[in-house]
């Protein structure tokens, strides 16, 4: 495999660092903004449009589930205020608790479709649940957009040829890849990497993809420690001690939610952040407001599903600005990626329904909505979302950044001046790539990415051996 230098590599990936958002390509449908709209064509029934929304209302993951529901609720309220879908059909949301277990969830989805006759199914947080519910949604022929449940397994294996189901979050693989690319460009002389990941598919995917990217981009770096706390762990003493003992220069971590808050508070007292760089896949994604100002600055604080409410910030991207304002006004908290996901999924549905009506008139058939959704590109608070027709997966450009305290918020945010973005097409397996193990993206990276040449970077740290051929240092 060809060896390249890292700078070429990064520019090849299209990685940008800074404040810019990709230029707006004019006339895309967008969410949350009441724009001039044609009158709906044909006869529209005024029966309520029933959405079954299943997410975690109880259990530890309710920290993700509640915002997802609120995001959808907000969108539904806005749409209903304008008369409903196509101006006629008011949205009615039926809540269901995902925490009842996979078995009960499958039953509940059947009940929602067969008994409650829902028109649309939405939600799902756990990556263990989309592979169970996806096939059932297909078999029930219920139009579905999963907001999360981000396992690659869903479209790689569980439903390789989806028709009724879509998903708008990024896949798990993207988190690991994004974190690793950011870490590799920020700390290119990393030699010893430690890992702490939650012990389930999200954590393992983060681990696998972080490793494969590091193998390509930072050759010679080795994994010196792995810790796998169970999801829901709040005592990280042992994991921290183990990690410190391995003397890594970089820690890759994908612990999230309340677990992460407990982790960083404990890690601070162990002086962990002084001893190594830290790259998290998801630290600021789950509950931004739960992170305290004591959180160290300058770590890579990933956001799952590429949304942090401060980015795109200010007036650069009005969709996000208005969404954050409305959400904060309605619920008195800042939205996380799940809130954005629930909101965007609802508007994506609305957009597809509007378009399908525009094409054919009347209330569109599910198949008409599906054909609009396939290949739909839409501007959402998080930026552009594109639904790839072949696998029904939503793609948006990956972002990550560095933790920073600012005056405006009582908690740290991503440093607005150093946001890292990567075009999503460059870090996920392209259409037609054969299904792989553990994921298609993994095998795609393994097989097609070039290898960064060893010692292509100068060592800046004092005492480190200088490479034979000096190359221009990348700005960190």
């Amino acid at each position: 495999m060809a060896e390249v230098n890292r700078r070429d590599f990064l520019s090849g990936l299209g990685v940008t660092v800074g404040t810019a958002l990709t230029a707006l390509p004019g006339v895309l449908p967008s969410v949350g903004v009441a724009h001039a709209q044609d009158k709906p064509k044909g006869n529209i029934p005024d029966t309520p449009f029933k959405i079954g929304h299943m997410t975690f209302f109880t259990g530890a993951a309710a920290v993700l589930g509640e915002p997802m529901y609120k995001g959808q609720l907000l969108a539904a309220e806005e749409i209903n205020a304008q008369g409903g879908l196509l101006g006629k059909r008011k949205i009615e949301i039926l809540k269901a608790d995902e925490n009842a277990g996979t078995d009960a969830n499958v039953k509940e989805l059947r009940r929602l479709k067969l008994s409650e006759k829902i028109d649309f199914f939405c939600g799902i947080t756990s990556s263990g649940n989309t592979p169970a519910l996806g096939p059932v949604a297909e078999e029930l022929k219920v139009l579905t957009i999963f907001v999360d449940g981000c396992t690659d397994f869903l479209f790689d294996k569980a439903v390789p040829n989806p028709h009724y189901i879509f998903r708008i979050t990024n896949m798990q693989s993207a988190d690991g890849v994004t974190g690793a690319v950011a870490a590799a460009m920020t700390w290119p002389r990393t030699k010893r990497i430690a890992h702490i990941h939650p012990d389930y598919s999200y954590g393992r995917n983060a681990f696998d993809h972080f490793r494969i990217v590091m193998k390509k981009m930072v050759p010679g770096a080795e994994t010196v420690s792995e810790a796998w706390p169970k999801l829901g762990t709040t005592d990280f003493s042992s994991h921290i001690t183990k990690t410190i003992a391995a003397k890594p220069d970089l820690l890759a971590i994908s612990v999230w939610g309340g677990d992460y808050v407990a982790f960083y508070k404990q890690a601070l007292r162990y002086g962990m952040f002084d001893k190594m760089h830290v790259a998290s896949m998801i630290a600021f994604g789950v509950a931004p407001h739960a992170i305290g100002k004591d959180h160290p600055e300058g770590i890579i604080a990933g956001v799952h599903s590429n949304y942090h409410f401060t980015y795109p910030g200010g007036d650069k991207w009005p969709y996000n600005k208005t969404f954050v304002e409305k959400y904060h006004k309605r619920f008195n908290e800042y939205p996380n990626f799940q809130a954005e996901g629930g909101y965007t999924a609802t508007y994506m549905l609305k957009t597809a329904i509007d378009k399908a009506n525009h094409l054919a008139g009347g209330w569109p058939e599910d198949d008409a909505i599906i054909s609009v959704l396939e290949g739909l590109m839409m501007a959402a608070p998080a930026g552009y979302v594109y639904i790839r027709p072949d696998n029904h997966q939503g793609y948006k450009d990956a972002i990550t950044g560095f933790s920073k305290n600012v005056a405006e918020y009582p908690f740290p945010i991503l440093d607005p001046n150093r946001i890292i973005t990567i075009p999503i097409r460059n870090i996920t397996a392209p259409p037609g790539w054969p299904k792989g193990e553990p994921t298609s993206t993994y095998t795609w990276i393994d097989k097609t990415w070039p290898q960064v040449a060893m010692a292509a970077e100068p060592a800046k740290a004092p005492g480190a051996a200088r490479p034979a051929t000096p190359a221009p240092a990348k700005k960190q």
Partner: protein
Amino acid sequence: MSTVTTVVIPARSPIRRLWYAAPVLAVLLVLPWVAEQYQTILLAYGLVMAIAAIGFNLLLGYTGLLSFGHSAYFGVGAYAVALMVKYLGVVSMELHLLGAIAASVLVTAIFGIACVRYTRIFFSILTMALSQVLWSLAFKFFWVTGGTDGLRVPTPTLLGVVTGKGDKTAFLVHQYYYYVLGVFLVCVAIMWVIVNSPFGRALQAIRDNETRAQFVGIPIWRYRWVAFMLSGVFTGVAGALWVPLNGLTTPDILHWTFSGKIVFMAVLGGFRTFVGPIVGAVVYNYLESYAVGYTVYWQLFLGVILVVLVLSLPTGIVGTAERLMARRRGPR
């Protein structure tokens, strides 16, 4: 003392009771044609869980052992099917059932040797600990079991001819429902014979009085072990039947809280009677499904039901109904 006496046939002659089952069976048979699809699917779940519950009740109701680890055997049945699909490409439901039976015999035989020496709380905790071992293995050995993602199981072939190609909902509501009903009836019949066999009486004797049972010549541990295996196999069969309904196996069904559900079912229906667990499984299934659908405080709801049940109706639905009926008939 040598006067001729007439034989006293046991009063509860169970054969006579079969007549009560006839109308119920008729309802079960016509249901897919009259009820809405969801109700039929829910009932299919209920029947599957009923098989697990009567298996469980062979231990609790008839042998006096409260297992808090029956999730293990349910899970073994389900995972046996999933692994057969993954590694052997087997799609025949009959082979799935055979595989599930073989796997659950193996696991219960080993677990049983360990567990049957104990009774009461020690038995409960030991079964729970062993089921958690399986749970953590399914969880940790993800390259075999799929970890939390679980293992996907496609629609099986029934009797070598019926395939679920096409509309799976219709398949579940008709072909598969009748298949489950058939297996359920076979299981109920077998279990009914077992509990009414001399062996079943011996188990009840062990339940009532271990020492005395020993002194009528019953090998306690061996019989408990056999009961343990039978119980586990029924639950394993239920696990295998459950897989096509869920479409996926996940470690959820191995966790001890799933065992708690099975216990709940038996107690809800009444574990002192044969039909209690069947009624309990079906009713629990409805309770849980509708509670989850209607309130996020479904746990609270189920918890309150459980507490009220054990406080005021310890004999469960069937036990209470029997008592009420006996009272209406008046004392004999």
